[in-house]
C-alpha cells in the first residue's frame, strides 16, 4: 500500500508479465526483434540506475518477479496479461501457463487472465473453456497484431472475434484487455485503428473492454470512442512510464483521460518487466499536473483520483474486496516472505504512522 497525504492507497498493478525471451525459446527472428524493441522501451523510460541488462531482461523468473512486485510493498496485487506470440517463441513468450507458475504460488495476490485468438477456430474455443476450467480466468488479454501463418493480425469486430466474445460472455469472462500499440504489419489502416473496439464494446455491453496503452498512438480515437461507450476503460501501461522523463506529457495524457473517461475508467499498469513497479508506483504517485494543465482540464491527481486509478477501478472490474484483502495480507505467504507484517498492520495499527 502506498501512503498519500496520510491515506492508504491499495495498489493493483493492472498489467504484468512473466516472460521468457531466452535465445533457446526464440524460433523466429521476430522474437528477437520483439524483445529488443521491448528493451528499447525499457531503457527509454527507466532511470539509468534502475536499468536491467539484456540477459536479466530476457528471463527474470518467478522468484525475482515476486521480489520486484512485493519486496518493498510497491504493489499489493497484480493482474497477469499474457502475450502468447507462439509464432515467435517455442513455448510462447508470456502465456497463461507460464504466468500461472507465480499466480498459483500466491493466488491471493494475483489475477490471472487468459487469452484467445479467433484464428484458432473451434480449437481456440475449446482452449478458452479449458482456461476457464483450469484457472478460472476472469478476463483475457488479446493481441490483435499477433502473426499466425500468413495472417499478420485480426480485428476485434470480425465475425470470428465476435464468436469468441460471445463465448467469453457465456463463460463469465468479463474483462477483455486489448493491446493497442505499435503494429508490425506492412501497413495499412491498423496503424491508427482502435475503432474495432467501438463495435465490439457496443455489441457486448455486458463485457468490459480495457484498452491497454490508452490507444497510443491513437489516444484521440480511443478517448472519443471511450467517451461514448461506458464499458471501455483505459490501461496506463506505457503512459505511466512517461513520468520518468516526460512528466509534462504524462500530465497532458492524464488530463485528457480524466476529461473524456473520468476517474472511474482509468487503470494503472506498470507493464512489468518493461518497467518495474518497484520504482514506478512511487513515481506515478508523485506525478503532478502543471498549473496550466489544471486550468485546462479542470482535474487533479489528488488522493481520491489516485486511489481509484491505482487500485479501486481494477478491484471493481475483477471483483476484489480491498478491505477483505487488507485483512488477508496481514499474514499471507507474501507478507511472511517479505516481512510485511507491519506494513499491513498485522500488529494492530503499526503501519498507520
Amino acid at each position, binding site marked *: 500500500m502506498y501512503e498519500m497525504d496520510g491515506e492508504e492507497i491499495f495498489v493493483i498493478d493492472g498489467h504484468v508479465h512473466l516472460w521468457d525471451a531466452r535465445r533457446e525459446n526464440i524460433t523466429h527472428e521476430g522474437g528477437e526483434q520483439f524483445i*529488443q524493441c521491448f528493451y*528499447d522501451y525499457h531503457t527509454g523510460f527507466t532511470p539509468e540506475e534502475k536499468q536491467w541488462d539484456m540477459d536479466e531482461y530476457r528471463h527474470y523468473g518467478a522468484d525475482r518477479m515476486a521480489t520486484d512486485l512485493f519486496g518493498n510493498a510497491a504493489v499489493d496485487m497484480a493482474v497477469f496479461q499474457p502475450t502468447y506470440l507462439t509464432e515467435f517463441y517455442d513455448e510462447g513468450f508470456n502465456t497463461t501457463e507460464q504466468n500461472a507458475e507465480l499466480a498459483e504460488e500466491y493466488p491471493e495476490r494475483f489475477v490471472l487472465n487468459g487469452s484467445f485468438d479467433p484464428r484458432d477456430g473451434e480449437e481456440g474455443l475449446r482452449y478458452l473453456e479449458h482456461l476457464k476450467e483450469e484457472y478460472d480466468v476472469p478476463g483475457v488479454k488479446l493481441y490483435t497484431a499477433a502473426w499466425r501463418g500468413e495472417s499478420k493480425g485480426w480485428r476485434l469486430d470480425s465475425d470470428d472475434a465476435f464468436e469468441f466474445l460471445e463465448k467469453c460472455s457465456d463463460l463469465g469472462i468479463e474483462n477483455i484487455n486489448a493491446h493497442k500499440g*505499435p503494429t508490425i504489419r*506492412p501497413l*495499412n*489502416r491498423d496503424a491508427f485503428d482502435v475503432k474495432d473496439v467501438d463495435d465490439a464494446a457496443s455489441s457486448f455491453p455486458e463485457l468490459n473492454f480495457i484498452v491497454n496503452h490508452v490507444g497510443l498512438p491513437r489516444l484521440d480515437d480511443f478517448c*472519443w470512442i471511450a467517451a461514448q461507450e461506458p464499458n471501455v476503460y483505459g490501461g496506463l501501461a506505457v503512459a505511466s512510464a*512517461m513520468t520518468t522523463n516526460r512528466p509534462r506529457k504524462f500530465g497532458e495524457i492524464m*488530463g*485528457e483521460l480524466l476529461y473524456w473517461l473520468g476517474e472511474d475508467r482509468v487503470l494503472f499498469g506498470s507493464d512489468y518487466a518493461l518497467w518495474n513497479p518497484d520504482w514506478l508506483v512511487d513515481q506515478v504517485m508523485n506525478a503532478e499536473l502543471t498549473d496550466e494543465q489544471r486550468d485546462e482540464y479542470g482535474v487533479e491527481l489528488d488522493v481520491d483520483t489516485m486511489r481509484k486509478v491505482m487500485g479501486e477501478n481494477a478491484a471493481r472490474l475483477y471483483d476484489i474486496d480491498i478491505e477483505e484483502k487488507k485483512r488477508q495480507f496481514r499474514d499471507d505467504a507474501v507478507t511472511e516472505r517479505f516481512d510485511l507484517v507491519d506494513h499491513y498492520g498485522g500488529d494492530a495499527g503499526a503501519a498507520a504512522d
Partner: protein
Amino acid sequence: MSGSRTDAGGTGARDAVPDTADDRDEAAVTARLDRVEDPELARSIVELDYVGTIEIDDDRVRVTFTLPTAWCSPAFAWMMAVDARDEVEDLEWVREARVELHDHMHAEEITTGVNAGDTFGETFPDADGGVAEVRATIADKARVSRQREAIEALLAAGVDPVQIVDLDRGDVSLDGDDAHVALDGLSVVVDREPVADYLGRAEASGHVTTDDDTLFLTPEGEPIPADQLALVQKRSRLADVNMGGQGAVCDALHRARHGPNGPGESGDPTA
C-alpha cells in the same frame, strides 16, 4: 528539443526554398530533408534526428536514416523514404538521390523498393490499404490538431462562435504578419501564424480548398454546429496531445537505440 513543437516547417507552411539550395553541400541537402516529416508526429525528420549520414558525390547524393524502432509502421517508413528521395532530387544539381533505411525490420525491402521507384503495393503485396490512404488519415489528423489555435485566435479577438462556424475559406486572407477575417463588412485582424498553419494543414488534407468551402470543420469533416464548437475544440486539443504523446514515445525509443546524438554519432546502432 524533446517533445517540443515545431512552429514552422509544417507541410503547409513551407514554400520558401532556402538560399543555400544551389550549394552542393550537406547544408543544402539537410535543408531539403528538413521539409520531410514523420507523418505520425508532423515534425521534421531532421529535427527528430532520424537522418544519419549524407554523402555527396558530384551530382549523386546518398542519405541514410533510422527510425525510433525497428517496428515503426512500414507505411510510415516508406513515406519518409520517398519524400526524402523526392526532396533531395528536387535540388537542381542532384541527378540521383539514394535513400537508405537502416535498422528496420523491413529496411531492405523499403530501401530497394524506394530507390527502384517501385510502389508500396509492389513491395508489400500483402498489405491491405495503401500509402495514399494512410497519408490521407495522417493529413486529416494534422488538420484537426491545428484548427484549435486558429479558432482560439479568433475567439480571443472577440469573434462570436456563431460567426466562426459560418466562415468560409474566402473570408480569410493572409497579409504580412496578419490574417484578415471578413465578418459582415467588418474585418478582424489576428496573428498570421495559427491561421496560416491551419490553412496549410487543411488544404493538405483535401478540405477547405476553395473559397466557398466552410473554413472550420469537425474531425469528421462536417460544418460545426455553433453549440458544438467548444466540444470540437476539445477534440482538436486531444488530437494535438496525441501527436505530442507519440512524439515523446518515439523520441525516448530513438535515444534508447542511438544515444542522445542520433544515429550519425553512435557506434553500432544495432547493438
